[in-house]
């Protein structure tokens, strides 16, 4: 069977593989036999090999070198291009993070291929599905030049185990000077959270301007915690200083596609919809019965979030 390379995306420092990697391994099986590629600092692969094998990696290519972490994006694309040259895979699948998309872009130039970003599905003939214009249009696309490269949007595919050998194969890494242009001098975490990461979470609870203050976002957080959810925010809530920008959902923020999206005090402007419209189930809580968010909602409560949300949180906690 044809080999398909899947670039593994890892959590920082010993945090294991990200769910998006397991999704990519699952999606890649439509095209052939997946092999995982770990391009990371030395000592990283041992902690993630088993998970990669469990989700279908016949081979785990291990390219470990300090430079791939010390410089932005370019070294990873270089190593991946080298591996593509050696293995001639049928395709490359990469999780659709900002870095993943940039690796895909640079790889495409290096090997003379086309690439498709944020695909939600890949079929056996290589056709991919993409969602355009704030979720209003579904597009089917193909790569027509070179070996196809796809980046897979998080939460579009359910990861399914398919145990495989996961045979480790070391890849020798030599990073060119040209790839050492942009040096990463520090990685700063400003908000540490025990909640799931926004783009990976299977439930997201978001607050908008209707939440009315930063303090009052605690009721959004409490509902999120009762559901094991991530917290999101509309741009209006972020601009008003209620919640940090890295939690913004929408066109200029994160695109999320969880099983359940709960929009609280959010009107449902098109730019907000752009980031959440493909969520499987949508619930809206809003005091304005005319709020456009209700057009999207599978379930809507017309009411004051200050009463409805705490009551719901209490009831969900009581069920545990």
């Amino acid at each position, binding site marked *: 069977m044809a080999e398909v390379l899947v670039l593994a995306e890892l959590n920082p420092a010993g945090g294991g593989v990200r769910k998006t990697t397991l999704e990519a391994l699952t999606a890649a099986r439509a095209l052939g036999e997946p092999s995982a590629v770990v391009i990371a600092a030395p000592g990283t692969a041992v902690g993630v090999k088993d998970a990669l094998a469990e989700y279908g990696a016949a081979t785990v290519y291990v390219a470990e070198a300090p430079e791939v972490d010390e410089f932005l*994006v370019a070294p990873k694309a270089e190593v991946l291009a080298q591996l593509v040259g050696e293995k001639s895979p049928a395709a490359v699948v990469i999780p659709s993070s900002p870095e993943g998309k940039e690796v895909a*872009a640079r790889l495409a130039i290096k090997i003379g291929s086309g*690439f498709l970003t944020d695909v939600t599905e890949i079929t056996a003939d290589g056709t991919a599905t993409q969602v355009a214009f704030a979720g209003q249009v579904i*597009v089917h696309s193909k790569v027509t030049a070179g070996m196809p490269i796809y980046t897979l949007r998080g939460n579009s595919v359910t990861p399914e185990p398919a145990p495989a050998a996961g045979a480790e194969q070391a890849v020798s890494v030599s990073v060119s000077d040209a790839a050492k242009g942009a040096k990463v001098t520090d990685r700063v975490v*400003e908000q540490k959270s025990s909640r799931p*990461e926004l783009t990976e979470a299977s439930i997201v609870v978001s607050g908008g301007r209707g939440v009315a203050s930063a303090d009052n976002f605690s009721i959004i957080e409490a509902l999120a915690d009762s559901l094991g959810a991530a917290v999101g925010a509309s741009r209006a809530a972020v601009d008003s200083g209620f919640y940090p920008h890295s939690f913004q959902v929408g066109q200029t923020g994160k695109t999320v596609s969880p099983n359940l999206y709960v929009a609280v005090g959010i009107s449902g402007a098109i730019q907000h919809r752009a980031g959440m419209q493909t969520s499987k189930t949508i619930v809206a809580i809003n005091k304005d019965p005319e709020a456009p968010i209700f057009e*999207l909602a599978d379930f*809507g409560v017309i009411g004051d979030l200050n009463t409805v949300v705490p009551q719901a949180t209490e009831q969900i906690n009581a069920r545990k």
Partner: protein
Amino acid sequence: MNIVVLVKQVPDSGSERKMDPADNTVARAAADNVVNEIDEYAIEEALVVKEAQGGEVTVLTVGPDSATDAIRKALSMGADKAVHVSDEAIKGSDAVQISAVLAAALGQLEFDLVICGAEATDSQMSVMPALLAERLGLPQLSGARKLTVDGGVAKIERQTDGGYWAVEAPLPAIVSTWDTINEPRYPSFKGIMAAKKKPVETKTLADLGVDASAVGLANATTQVVDFAGRPPKGEGVKVTDEGDGAQKFVDFLAGQKIV
């Protein structure tokens, strides 16, 4: 400090956007076209750097004739001059091909810094800085929420989930900006009047030495096979809270086996 700022004209994300069934491309001619929103932040950042360090800001755009509106907007904000690459053969080009045209145009300009937006609202790809960095062999400083330029070195804070990465590179380099980086100015009346007299150079593929076979729908590296409107959602359930709204919400979640 000479800066080239990349500006794209896109269909307004706030109005209905369509695909053209004739060739499966974005319907741009009939659209309500505007400057890609995040590019205004790139323009502002270029102006801020120029105001501190001197030099010139050149706007570069690849797009149809209507893209002159986007150029005028950038010039009225304070950019000095513009290069507009316009050629019928470019229609339908994908990101890889546009990057070849932009790279060729950049090759004819002198710059210390290229600044672009982090993402176009039509493609939502966020890949142009990476494509150009790869083609031109320049350092990529993408996804910035902060930029400082000092002593021939550019430093950014690359926005990440819950924080940032500090990244630096020697000039010349390519920077892309998010909307967290600044607050774009509004063009003043004086700026709008002045923009009318600023030079805009129009270039064709021939001027850039790019072969027409490298661009256009027929030679694209990706192809839209078909498209369709997303099937409308079935009518949802809506309840008015009369003391039991929370209960009904939780019952709904239970029915979905979520709680």
